[in-house]
């Protein structure tokens, strides 16, 4: 941070305190987006192992059969579900859907755009992601 600009910088951008669940959702959306991008690139690399023939493919796939591999996949499941659920909420919001309607503001000025519909969207994305992760764990570790 240069004092000249006094910009909050990345530290301030990723600090989810003080601004409610919406700011936490913003942070999770960024992290899961980047996580999925990383996974996507790794996935393209992984599946290209098929060019090494059956042995190469099986060797690589064996990685996902380890405990670490299972945990990694559980995380990917969670990221996918949250990112998709919250992504649909954000796309609706970005289109101006469910963000309230203009009205004369009155003290204490609770903003209509930060309403229960969007909060429900965020919390249900988190709950769905947790449920999907638990199901994934049950399948992978329950063998």
């Amino acid at each position, binding site marked *: 941070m240069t*004092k000249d600009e006094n910009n909050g*910088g990345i530290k301030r951008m990723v600090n989810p305190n003080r*601004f409610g669940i919406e*700011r936490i959702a913003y942070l999770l959306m960024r992290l899961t987006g980047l996580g999925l991008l990383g996974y996507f690139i790794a996935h393209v690399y992984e599946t290209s192992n098929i060019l090494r023939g059956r042995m190469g493919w099986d060797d690589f796939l064996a990685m996902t059969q380890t405990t670490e591999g299972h945990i990694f996949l559980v995380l990917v499941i969670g990221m996918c579900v949250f990112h998709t659920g919250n992504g649909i909420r954000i796309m609706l919001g970005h289109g101006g859907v469910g963000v309230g309607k*203009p009205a*004369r503001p009155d003290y204490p*000025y609770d*903003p209509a755009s930060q309403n229960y519909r969007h909060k429900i969207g965020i919390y249900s994305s988190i709950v769905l992601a947790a449920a999907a992760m638990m199901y994934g764990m049950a399948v992978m570790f329950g063998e």
Partner: protein
Amino acid sequence: MAQVSSTADEQAPNLLSTSKSVLLKISRFNPESDDSSKFMEFSIPYQKWTTVLEAILDVKKHFDHSVAVRYSCRQATCGSCGMLINGKPRLACFTKISELDSDVVTVEPMNNFPVIRDLAVRFEKLFDKHQKIKPYVIRDDTELESDQREFLQSPEEVEQYIQFANCIKCGLCNSACPTMATDSSFVGPQALAQAYRYVADSRDKGNDDRLNIIDESHGIWRCHFAGSCSQVCPKGVDPAMGIQFLRGYLLGFRN
């Protein structure tokens, strides 16, 4: 810079029936002479109704009059006294110490604004961006040429934008915005909310102009709908709502 710590009780006889006191930490920084900011601490007596601004003015009056702070109206109208109060952008004149529910009150200059000194920040960028979106009614005919004396609006038409006309240009929204934290070229929630204020005004005919200005790489598309702007706005403007409406309009979802 020396750390000052003393009780205002002895030195501030004007505050008599005081039952509580709070530790006020004020960020001191002069870009011309200091490398980094330092906090000065003061113990300040307060009442249920004492505002953070009053506490700062108390410090100026009784301990250190060199503390730089900008204020004018003391009633959330001029938009001068925005600062970080316990880490959150708020108006000092509109924030009571008692409502903060803390024994320590830390005041720092708003982020995403260059510091002039201590708590006073530069507003040029905010005003430039505000001006850039053409914050006035645009039309070819003027009131003088028109045979009607004024441009009539129904109460419903007024309701469409009046909320956004409440903006006092305090900059709290720009300070809270996570995009602004890393992109100082971003047009920002204050200006975008004002763009919506005029786009939604039935008298205005300047939409194409204005939408072109915000439809650029550091424009409206950098908003991620984190909503922090709306959560700190002291006038209930709800910039996040205006921005999503504008974007809906640009995307063709809204008329």
